[in-house]
């Protein structure tokens, strides 16, 4: 099988990035007014919207309510126009159900679930444009939306993908093009500050020897993502603060 070189001799990837470079991340908190928290994130061309409702009374079957923890309810949905080929259904297929479950798992690790017994938090993510790394973008967007909703979390929960190129070189944040051409993709969700891995998923295979380097790359990616998100959150708080007036009274908030 002839595979295209994913990293050229000068060390550049198909879209001109280096092996350890993330795609450009742009994000915004509080894009909608109806939900309690919302966020929009762009990672390269991948665009995701997230909305958070809650904590509120348990909807539907009341028996689901837990005495010791809040219920996290996630729904992953992809707009029919998000892929180049038109999708038939936005959700309900096996892949989106699986991603909803994974998202839930990732968020439970970060949210202080014991603070809201007998309640429920809804997290909805909507993919507007899919260009590789959908799931990491969803996790990052959901984290921002949770922060916007004011739900206490232990720390940022970030996700990143990594892969192996040219059979030996690890590279981070895989785009759609690389996903198709290259082989294995490792997705991890981590708590970057405590360096804990919450969820790890892999497609296809590579040699066990490479796992360490790829994992490290992915973790590095998570940490970098966290820094970007952190910056965005701080900017948002300053903006909101300025508009409500507290920022002008005290000394200038450190950016």
């Amino acid at each position, binding site marked *: 099988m002839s595979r295209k070189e994913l990293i050229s001799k000068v060390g550049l990837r198909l879209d001109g990035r280096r092996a350890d470079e993330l795609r450009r991340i742009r994000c915004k908190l509080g894009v909608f*007014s109806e939900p309690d928290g919302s966020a929009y994130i762009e990672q390269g061309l991948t665009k995701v919207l997230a909305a958070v409702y809650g904590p509120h009374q348990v909807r539907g079957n009341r028996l689901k309510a837990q005495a010791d923890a809040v219920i996290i309810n996630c*729904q992953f*949905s992809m707009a*029919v126009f998000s892929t180049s080929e038109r999708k038939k259904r936005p959700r309900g297929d096996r892949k989106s159900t699986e991603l909803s479950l994974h998202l839930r798992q990732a968020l439970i690790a970060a949210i202080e679930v014991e603070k809201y017994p007998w309640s429920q938090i809804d997290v909805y993510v909507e993919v507007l*444009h899919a260009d590789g790394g959908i799931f990491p973008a969803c996790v990052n967007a959901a984290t921002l939306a949770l922060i916007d909703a004011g739900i206490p979390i232990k720390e940022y929960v970030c996700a990143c993908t990594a892969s192996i190129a040219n059979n030996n070189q690890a590279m981070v944040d895989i785009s759609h093009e690389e996903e198709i051409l290259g082989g294995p993709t490792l997705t991890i969700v981590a708590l970057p500050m405590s360096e804990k891995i919450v969820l790890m998923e892999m497609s296809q295979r590579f040699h066990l020897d490479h796992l360490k380097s790829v994992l490290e790359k992915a973790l590095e990616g998570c940490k970098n993502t966290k820094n970007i998100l952190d910056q965005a959150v701080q900017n948002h708080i300053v903006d909101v603060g300025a508009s409500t007036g507290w920022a002008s009274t005290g000394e200038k908030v450190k950016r």
Partner: protein
Amino acid sequence: MTLSEAEKTFILHGVQENFRIDGRNRDDYRPMELETSIITHAFGSARLRLANTDVVVTVKVEIDVPFPDRPLEGKMEFFIDCSANATPDFEGRGGENLATEISNTLTAAYSSNSVFDYTKLCILKGRKCWKIYVDILILECGGNLYDAISIAVKAALWNTSIPLVKSVTIDGNNVDMNVSENLSDCIKLDISAAPLMVTLCKIGDHCVVDPTSAEEQCSQGAIVVAISKGKFSTVFQTGGGSLHPLTLMEKLKLGAKVGNRLEEALSEALSKIKENGEMGFLN
């Protein structure tokens, strides 16, 4: 959100005084923001924000076979996706009823050839035609979905360009098409007659246009009209309630007037849209 009786009375009185809770007159719209070409995967797209109502419409074009009883016409299909981002009620299959209602209405409004010329979509009689998929994603509901969607659909169709088919050759049963690869020679759709919908919400003895979701809760029924070049392409009543025939005529006349005004505003807005402006959710 549920309103108490006192709040409803307050809204009702405001409508009577022609001074609504947000300071508008009965036939005023809330401010709108329109962007086009925001989805790169699509042939045409638009996003409309009408106060708190937020919809994204994209158009995709595929090749299909015409209906046997209408060999000279192309096809158009509307698909509505009620995102759970808008309200938790839409989770799972919760938004499906609303989605069918809206897509049926759009199909009815676009059904006539004098509203949208389907013969332009035909490539080869009885064999090949363009099928237009209009996908509508509802991101936030702040009332008045029908109007917002119809404006966004029209803008998205305006934004759409269909690839130019240079030549068609028939070889037995096979049809070969030569589609122009030059990005600049694309066909724009003629949307001058595409309908705009106006919802007239009956509150007390009066009708308001562009109701907020609070006003929708106070309404005793609404009438939706789709106006295309001053003519009605679809009219239907919704939300319970009934009207006297004479009142009905009055409302229809009002609807036509508002529809024409909306049409003017939209074409003015579309003419001002610049390519490659800063847009999207980041702003």
